[in-house]
């Protein structure tokens, strides 16, 4: 237990920030128009202000009550994020299969239950499955393996 509700303080601050960003950025980049003839900016800028209001309403009371600190599982978070990033970066230049294989290997670092060679095996199995389902089953034209240079 903490003397302040940090979860809601963070949540409120994030929402306030998003709301302010949406309205300020919106006002600078879009025409507002009038209520009868609304421009592209009218609706989003208004919503931005409403969101900031919600943010404040969540932010302030949180200082006056106790709460828990959020407990992120950083290892799972980083492993999963890195695996998706790798897939996104590799799929165009290297093709689908290397991307799948790399994703599987990196994702398996999130928990240590899968030994490296087994993760590699899983990666190969998933690659085979992907070829069967997406290439032969659905007939999609994706490059399976490529070499960028």
């Amino acid at each position, binding site marked *: 237990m903490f003397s302040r509700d940090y*979860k*809601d303080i*963070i*949540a409120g601050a*994030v*929402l306030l920030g*998003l*709301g302010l960003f*949406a309205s300020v950025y*919106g006002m600078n*980049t*879009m*025409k507002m128009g009038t*209520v*009868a*003839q*609304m421009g*592209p*900016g*009218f*609706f*989003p800028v208004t*919503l*931005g202000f*409403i*969101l900031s209001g*919600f943010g404040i*309403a*969540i932010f302030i009371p949180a200082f006056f009550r106790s709460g828990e600190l959020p*407990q*992120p*599982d950083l290892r*799972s*978070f980083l492993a*999963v*994020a890195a*695996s*998706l990033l790798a*897939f*996104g*970066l590799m*799929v165009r230049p290297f093709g689908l299969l290397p*991307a*799948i294989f790399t*994703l*599987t290997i990196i*994702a*398996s670092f*999130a*928990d240590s*239950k*899968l030994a490296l060679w087994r*993760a590699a095996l*899983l990666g190969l199995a*998933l690659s085979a499955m*992907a070829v069967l389902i*997406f290439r032969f089953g*659905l007939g*999609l034209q*994706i490059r399976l393996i490529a070499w960028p240079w």
Partner: protein
Amino acid sequence: MFGNFFDSIILGASTAFTPQNLLYCLLGVTLGNLVGVIPGIGALAAMSLLFPITFHLDPVAALVMLGGIYYGTSYGGSTASILLNLPGMPSNAVTCLDGYPMARQGRAGVALFMTTIASFVGSSIGIIILMLFSPVISQFALQFGPAEYFSLMVMGLVIASLISEGSALKGLAMVVVGILIGLVGMDMYTGSQRYTFGRLELMDGVSLVAVAMGLFGVSEVIASIRNVGQVKFTKKITLRSMLPTKDDMRRSWLPMLRGTGIGSFFGTLPGTGATVSAFMSYAVEKRLAKDPSRFGNGAIEGIAAPEAANNASDQTSFIPTLTLGVPGNVNMAIVLGVLMVHGITPGPTMMVENANVFWGLIMSFWVGNVLLVLLNIPLIGIWVRVLLIPYHILYPTVLVFVCIGVYTINNSPFDVMTVLVFGMAGYGMKLIGLPAAPLLLGYVLGPMMEEEFRRAMLINNGNFEIFISRPISLFFIIVTVSVLGWSIWSAFSRQKELAVG
């Protein structure tokens, strides 16, 4: 009127019973059952995973398959609740309370049998309600103008955010965030760019599939990796052990009907759904019971009522989606997405203009539900074995399918990065207690809401009076305001109770 009705049923049946649609129905319900059984992957993740595939199918087959996944998960979800005390789906959480004790008393078979029967009863009555009420509601909805649609969507979003778990304020805030994300892209009136930061990829908006998979697939995986333990149970489920006693049957039928009633009501209401229905019906049964202490110790009423409720709610949630074009819950948002991709405008005109799609989908529900009974009673052994697949094999598989699914829509690595961003955001939101479901609802409804709002203001010269001068719109506004008032009042009285206690 009745001749018409039977014509529609025949049209629907002839659409649903083509070999192709039967096959996609089987595929859908089997997949739905599968992801339902596995804790940590939901209907939404599965539906968005298959969303890209539906581009290559004709609209009926696409809807039949996605629909099958959706209601199939409710059947499958109870299996994990009963055997592992771990809900396969949020709407099956309440089934753990009495299902798991039944399993520990050696009555797992009976529990699995009764939840399947209850699911089937709930679904069947739900489908009948769907068939009877959809024509009436869509007739009625033909009178809706922009003001009515706007008020209706506001009502749906407000109810959704108030009833979803956690604080109402956060729910409402997330709806607004969702609407803002939904507005990204080109403004259709003026053609100017909104929040695209000069990126070409954002011109068409943020991809629905990427948002849904990030928020509900990837973030769920991150949160589950360390929390799903190794599964241990050895009992084989035999058909003989599934037979309920006479006493079980006598106790269950009324709760099933009450559960169906509750589920149908909350299913039809936009914004609420299976989870609320299941919890409500459990509470009602406990209150009505002669001996409430049996609940939590393996009372069969405690599994029959919520399982009937969540399935009835699954089926009836198609009512607002198909007749008004307003999704009843986030899963229905995906269904709306499929309709739009195929150029079908959901709403009151759909029943006339695309009668074969509408009735074909509804008749496929009958096929799907019968298939699900077969999958869950004679073939229950398969699902029990599925529960034994360890999560560390499962989650890389899920991630691979998420990535391929998203990538193949536009062959765009940008969409994969969008999933990554929303996956990380979704996990962060979980940590600080911001609900994801209202965000997705806002995302889908946002552009529609803005369009109706702008249209209403244009017609009425910027006068807000239009929302309260038209009776149907006024009705929606009154409901919205009273629900808001009730929730503020109950929040304050709860705080007082805490202060006194």
